[in-house]
């Protein structure tokens, strides 16, 4: 669409937008990724924002970032280092310079580099004036004043004018990567349809940014990233939280039950509740409870009453739900508990990612209280694993914990839209009028009891948290019965292993090193391993989605390799869990606790070192 003289074809590009938390960087980043996805690139995104809605302006702590990675080939991570950094103020530059590739491009809003802002960001001198940025392609743009100039006759107030400066930056980057403006223009028209002045203003600024970059030839050359070769189908962009919500709705529809979500807002899980609340058209009932405990308890009540019930939370909330989760185990009611993990302990790092709730999910309840634990591993497969968690909960009559994390929850990627008809059926063990019903009688395959929903004539019965007599379900303090019931509860969860797929391995059976991961680190691990495999390194990857129970072939896979390294964003919880299961296997660890995902670079260095060790 543009007439640039020199175009360089690139396989992939990483862009990081950064500014104050009120600068609209999340929106800017989302627009660029959606446009790129529509263009046919594979895309992965990583929003990185502070816990405060409006953190102190101009400070490093208040910087909000959005990184995206788009490519002509398969993209599994948001990228380690950026080709282009957009820094709307000195603090954004300060916070993000370390994430820019050597000789990368930096676009700064020159207007914001005032003495006051430099001081707030902790700069002793103006980095635009000295030679600190000499190694980069530095583009100084007076974004604020150009935006003001552009909109001086727009009839908009000063505040609204300043708010649209993110569109200027977006326009510039669109030109640099030869992207069409149409998608963002449509977005602006839809979002501000009640404010025509704002629509016109934003569109004008977007185009002004685009033309500005063209005029100054922001890059001596410009990049083009061809569409990726991906499987045929209909695609959309989706975040992990939205995919989770949709997976739950899909399961309810497949099972033929209304979906009920009892939940309490908590970062970074809130969007699941919000998405479900918006889906009244599909009959979804959401109950914003008074606290986390009421979130799960209303869900348990709804499950007792015959709905497919879920509760959504993050680590501290899961801790509060603990006692009620035990009640769900005791009463053998279907329930999905979604834990979008964040940095802990306590309030910890609410907006940052971590995998440190694994042990809480596996063990964190009073008594012998097992329940299946499964983990999603990409933003879009949150749909698939939410669906699978639901299927297990409903068919096996058990609570299930689904683990995702802040990285998956907020990250987005293109997703090939499934057809409902292609999803596996969900068969709910409902008891029917006229059945000879015993509340705790079970089937042989799953050891699942039957679900007698209140309102069904003749099946009146009582359940509760006290120990149950085997079969009849009446209260029992008989010592031998407690042993029997404890064994059944354990066996029930083990039997789930008969209904899940084997653990897949990427790489050769006799590789020197096996990398082991679980959950949200999949993208980084698979990229690191794939790149090393391309370099003919003898390395393979086994990535787990099913944590409890483990896939049946787990031991067989792990035993094949001389060196096994378990990589996780915690202090070694999965490694410890594997050790307790497979005492003869030696597990090495690579762990990181910075509230950030792995980088492919650090993983490759670690694996190379391990490969070299004799």
């Amino acid at each position, binding site marked *: 669409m543009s007439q640039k003289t020199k175009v360089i074809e690139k396989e992939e590009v990483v862009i990081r937008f950064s500014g104050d938390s009120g600068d609209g960087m999340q929106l800017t980043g989302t627009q660029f990724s959606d446009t790129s996805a529509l263009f046919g690139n594979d895309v992965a995104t990583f929003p990185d924002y502070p816990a405060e809605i409006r953190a102190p302006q101009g400070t490093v702590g208040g910087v909000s970032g959005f990184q995206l990675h788009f490519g002509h080939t398969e993209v599994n991570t948001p990228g380690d280092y950026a080709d282009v950094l957009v820094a709307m103020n000195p603090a954004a530059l300060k916070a993000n310079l370390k994430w820019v590739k050597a000789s990368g491009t930096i676009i700064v809003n020159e207007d914001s580099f005032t003495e006051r802002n430099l001081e707030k960001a902790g700069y002793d001198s103006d980095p635009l004036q000295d030679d600190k940025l000499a190694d980069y392609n530095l583009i100084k743009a007076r974004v604020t004043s150009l935006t003001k100039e552009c909109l001086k006759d727009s009839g908009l107030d000063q505040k609204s004018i300043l708010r649209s400066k993110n569109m200027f930056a977006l326009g510039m980057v669109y030109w640099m990567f030869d992207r069409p403006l149409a*998608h963002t223009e449509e977005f602006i028209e839809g979002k501000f349809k009640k404010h025509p002045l704002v629509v016109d203003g934003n569109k004008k600024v977007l185009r002004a940014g685009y033309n500005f970059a063209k005029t100054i030839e922001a890059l001596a050359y410009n990049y083009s990233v061809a569409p990726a070769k991906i*499987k045929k189908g209909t695609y959309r962009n989706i975040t992990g939280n939205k995919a989770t919500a949709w997976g739950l709705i899909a399961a309810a529809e497949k099972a033929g039950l209304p979906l009920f979500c009892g939940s309490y807002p908590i970062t970074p899980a809130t969007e699941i509740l919000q998405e479900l609340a918006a889906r009244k058209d599909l009959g979804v009932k959401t109950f914003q409870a008074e606290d986390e405990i009421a979130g799960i308890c209303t869900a348990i009540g709804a499950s007792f009453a015959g709905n497919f019930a879920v509760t959504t939370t993050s680590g501290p909330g899961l801790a509060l739900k603990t006692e009620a989760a035990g009640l769900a185990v005791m009463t053998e009611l279907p329930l999905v508990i979604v834990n979008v993990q964040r940095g802990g302990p306590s309030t910890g790092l609410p907006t940052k990612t971590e995998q440190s709730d694994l042990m809480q999910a596996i063990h964190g309840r009073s008594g012998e209280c097992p329940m299946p634990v499964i983990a999603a591993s990409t933003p879009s497969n949150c749909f698939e694993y939410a669906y699978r968690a639901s299927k297990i909960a409903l068919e096996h009559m058990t609570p299930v914990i689904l683990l995702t994390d802040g990285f998956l929850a907020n990250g987005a990627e293109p997703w090939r839209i499934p057809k409902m008809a292609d999803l596996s059926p969900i068969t709910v063990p409902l008891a029917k009028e006229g059945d000879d019903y015993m509340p705790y009688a079970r089937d042989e395959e799953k050891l699942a009891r039957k679900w007698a929903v209140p309102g069904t004539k003749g099946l009146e019965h*009582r359940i509760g*948290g006290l120990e149950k007599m085997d079969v009849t379900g009446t209260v029992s303090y008989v010592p031998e019965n407690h042993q029997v019931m404890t064994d059944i509860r354990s066996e029930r969860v083990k039997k789930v292993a008969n209904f899940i797929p084997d653990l897949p391995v990427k790489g050769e059976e006799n590789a020197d090193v096996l990398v082991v991961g679980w959950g949200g680190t999949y993208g980084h691990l698979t990229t690191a391993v794939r790149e090393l495999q391309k370099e003919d390194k003898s390395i393979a990857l086994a990535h787990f989605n099913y944590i409890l129970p483990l896939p049946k072939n787990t031991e067989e896979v792990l035993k094949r390799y001389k060196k096994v390294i378990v990589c996780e964003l915690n202090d070694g919880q999965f490694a410890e869990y594997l050790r307790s299961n497979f005492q003869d296997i030696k597990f090495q660890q690579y762990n990181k606790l910075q509230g950030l995902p792995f980088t492919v670079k650090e993983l490759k260095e670690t694996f190379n070192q391990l490969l070299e060790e004799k």
Partner: protein
Amino acid sequence: MADSLLKQAAPEKLTPKDFKSDQEVRWCPGCGDHGVLNSVQKAMALMGKPKEDFAVISGIGCSSRFPYYMDTYGFHSIHGRAAAIASGAKSANPNLEILQVSGDGDALAIGGNHFIHAVRRNIDMTILLFNNEIYGLTKGQYSPTSKHGMVTKTSPFGTIEQPFHPAELALGAQSKFYARSIDTNIKLTSEILLDATKHRGTSIVEVLQNCVIYNDGAHSLITDKNTKEEYQLVLRHGERMIFGKEKNKGLVMGGNGKLVVVTIGEHGITEQDILIHDAHTPDPHMHWLLSNMTAPEYPVALGVIRDVAALSYEEKMVQQIKDVQAQSSIKCMDDLLNSGDTWEV
């Protein structure tokens, strides 16, 4: 066709016995809970609903054993959470008739948050609140309704805490239905329960209940044969607030905005001067004055103190879903999956 419809509509004739489960009732002999159990079974038989539509949901405590003794659907849950569990059950299945059973510790201490929020939302269920002003199941510690200064195992020198008045708490949470009874008055309790069930929204029925072991006689002034008629005022909508053995005492509004006990025939007071109970007025002021009366200064108000019509939570929820469904072009999951920005590869 008409015949089969009639057959469906005509409820089976049920008796209190139909609601008794096969489980042995294990409350202490003489416990007030026995009387409440009888009242509930009696009332349920008269409600005209099939047995399978009842769900009794409780928390933890002596009274929370209740579901085991009822031949209905039942859920004996965890401490304090019954109101939340019942809220979920009713939202999931609005056709259910839910009786949520709690004690003063279960509902007002560990479950205080769920109690006030259930009331605020106005979820259609009856909360049967057994108030014996003590923790019985853990063998005698003070509760949030124990009288100030009361000596218990955890307050050997007397409590230094102010007690809750459950009614005050409920009215603060915008309760639409509040009634009070005493455990031994089966007739009054069942009558109140029938009214509570007819009310759409959260109905609180506080039962002043006697724990014979750990707090015997907590309510003796209003339950003892010799004094009860002087200290009980049974309120009925539209009737005058008259009480006393001789039916000659009543309430009038004093000049200072406080209720005053008067005797008919003295100081020129006639029956016409006595206040008439209006349970249906939305203004909670008089209900607050009535429910906060304590003996011996006043009689204790029993009966339906407040019964104000309002839409329930789940009625609004069901309506909102219908309204949105009528407007939306998304009718199934496939529609949703393909909505918004999509592209073909």
